């Protein structure tokens, strides 16, 4: 049985940097075939130099990626995507500025062959606090943040350090389920924004180019019980932003995949020959390698 296609939802209000993030991810996809779905309200959000060919419904992008738009019927657009001759590795949905990400995630769960794989919500460091108390859109923005697994404080270069730290503490209340990371120009590493892909161990071995993130691999050679491990790894003290990998619950049984994003975890079916081992990734400086190893050992 093949793994369901992971779907990452990118939310946030207008101007937070969603489109810039999507283009950044396409540029750094490193061979991962992304299928980007954009809402139908905006102008086409893909940088022109990335576009290889443009059909009526689908745009081909360098590196085997594609982009299509969805209107009022996201489900139909995803079903169409599932029929593509080349199966993408990952779906990225760029929400409209007023969309509620959990509603989109819920729709994804209804479709055979797709599974939500984290909600990334971007905030504009300069304007978010004002926008969050706006009479019209404030409650929408707060709802978006409450849905976040990963909150990205973007445009961090535009605010001073005290503002940034005040923002971080505000987000710990406003986006209580989320891990928070800081970025400039939406430059969030692929592994953080979209997870570690189909082959986490290989991804990890390629390293993290920007040097802002750190990771370790937990080998998982012996059969293990996934649920206690997942719960242990989502402990905030460990500062794991994302984790993904494969394990065997019982010897020679069907292999399983573990996904962690922020405080949320999920165990799904896995392709039979996926390499054993779980990779954890987090922000350098916070990431507690030793504590993670110790916690994992105790949980097993």
């Amino acid at each position, binding site marked *: 049985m093949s793994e369901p296609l992971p779907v990452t939802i990118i939310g946030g*209000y*207008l101007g937070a940097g969603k489109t810039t993030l999507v283009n950044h991810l396409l540029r750094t996809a490193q061979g991962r075939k992304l299928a980007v779905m954009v809402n*139908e*309200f*905006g*102008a086409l959000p893909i940088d022109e130099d990335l576009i290889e060919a443009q059909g009526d419904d689908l745009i081909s992008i360098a590196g085997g990626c594609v982009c299509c*738009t969805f*209107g*009022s*019927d*996201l*489900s*139909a657009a995803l079903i169409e995507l599932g029929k593509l001759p080349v199966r993408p590795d990952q779906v990225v949905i760029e929400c*409209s*500025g*007023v969309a*509620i990400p959990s*509603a*989109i995630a*819920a*729709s994804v*769960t*209804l*479709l*055979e062959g797709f599974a939500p794989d984290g909600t990334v919500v971007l905030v504009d460091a300069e304007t978010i606090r004002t926008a969050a108390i706006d*009479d*019209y*859109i404030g*409650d*929408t923005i707060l709802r978006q943040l409450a849905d976040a697994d990963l909150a990205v404080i973007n445009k961090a270069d535009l605010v001073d350090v005290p503002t940034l730290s005040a923002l971080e503490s505000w987000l710990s209340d406003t986006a209580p389920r989320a891990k928070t990371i800081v970025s400039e120009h939406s430059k969030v590493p692929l592994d953080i924004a979209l997870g570690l892909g189909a082959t986490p161990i290989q991804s990890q071995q390629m390293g993290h180019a920007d040097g802002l993130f750190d990771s370790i691999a937990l080998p998982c050679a012996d059969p293990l019980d996934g649920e206690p491990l997942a719960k242990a790894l989502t402990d905030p003290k460990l500062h794991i932003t994302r984790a993904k990998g494969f394990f065997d619950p019982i010897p020679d049984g069907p292999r399983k995949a573990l996904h962690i994003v922020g405080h949320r975890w999920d165990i799904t079916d896995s392709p039979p020959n996926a390499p054993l081992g779980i990779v954890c990734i987090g922000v350098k400086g916070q990431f507690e390698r030793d504590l993670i190893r110790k916690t994992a050992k105790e949980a097993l």
Partner: protein
Amino acid sequence: MKTTVYSAKNIVTMNAQKPDASHVAVRDGRILAVGSSDEVATWGPYELDEQFADKVLFPGLVEGHAHTMEGTLWRYVYCGYFDRMDPSGTTHRGNTSIDAVLEALKAAEAKMDDPDSPLTGWQLDPIYLDNKPVTRAQLDNVSATRPIGVLNASGHILYANSKALELASLLKKGVNHPGIPLGADGLPTGELKGPDAMAPVSVHVGMSGSIADVDERGLRDFARLCVRTGVTTVTDLAAKLDPDSVDMMLRVTGEPSFPACVVPLRFFLGLSPKELVPEVARLKKLSTDRLSLGRIKLVADGSIQGYSARLRWPGYHNGAPNGLWYVTPEQMLELYELALEAGLQIHTHTNGDQATQLAIEKLELALRKHPSNDHRFVLQHCQLADRAQFTRMAALGMSVNLFANHQFYWGDEHYTLTVGPDRALRMNAARTALDCGVPLAVHSDAPITPLGPFFTAWCAVNRLTRSGRVQGEHEKITVDEALWAITMGAAHSLHMDGLVGSIEVGKRADFAVLESDPRAANPEEIKDVEIWGTVQGGRVFAAADV
């Protein structure tokens, strides 16, 4: 040049300069003269047509907010609570119990040959059936082997049987979606709330493609309903207008026997504001006598009974969280500015009063940038606006098209559940709109409620709810005001008041042919005016023949 003069028992012109007449002369599909037999004879030789000698001619009615897809829905099984007339003129009895709904479905099922083809119903509204959702077990009694789907009257809920759920791979445990309630057995109950929950099942119950788009046969059928309800100009308020759909509409409305002028508004979806405005300007140039293009529809929020409308404080009466925006304020402003600059009109759907407030504020800003004296931007529905908002709308040159029928169909629920007594009394405040000087139209939003402007006028005049309460005595308007709203008022909202809406020299020869004068009806009886048919562009359409 052939001139036809129609004599009538009375001609109600809605033109204050000559409110009544006995004869109207028609040449080239337009009104040449209105007056006495002698007055119209001054234009030279004519052929006298006396077929309306015992009828009342009234201006062809204008429905300013409907969706032509009702024509398509009539191919499904009617499951509504109220009696309703189909395009052929047959009145379907309302299904006043769940058993009656199931019987109607069973009767249709029995006539189907192919055992696998889906059975589709529409217009079911459990609010009237003890407010209990229909379950898949009930629908399984109709058929356990073919997929069944029944649309809620709102169009936003679908009830499915087990087979339909099974085909959509949803008949399983562990489904986790706020729009899909689960039964005691852990399986979905069959109720699917919201477009996302409906989507996986819709395709298996015969609703493939977009339900929002009318097809060719549906458009012809909808036009037959227009003839039966006296409507000669009808909007299609949220059309996608892709090239195929525009070609189809041009072709069908161009058929010699097509009896109405259709006014489709291009929905703001699929194009950015910068792309949409030139596209609509391009469409406008394709307009014909019977297909008027070149207007934009923007949806700001959801619906009140769906708790997705945006309300100002104190919000929903039952404590539900505030509703959803379907557009960002920034996009609304951008679209308003670009459309004003291009001279294109926008109709904005605002149900909640916060959405109305946003539209007012953004239009005010846009007008500062692109001053425009006669833009007539319309707020559609605008159900909860208060006096201060109508005052600002008047000052800004806005128009309103109120959802008068809502008061009858869901007024009781608004009073008890959604917005509470204070705001229920001011819903669809037609009196206040007129007093503040806002040009007024009223609408059915067909298929949400039945097409029928005289019924809509009745709602605005009497403000009765389904349970028989008068809700908002002070917001009643007079019969004359309501008749204006369904003719000149709606024509004004489309910038078509120089063309239709009254029986007046130079205008299109569009008449509703009636058995009696609606001005003479008791206010309680205005919905019962009998309609013989229409004349559209000088062509006669008897309801009995379409």
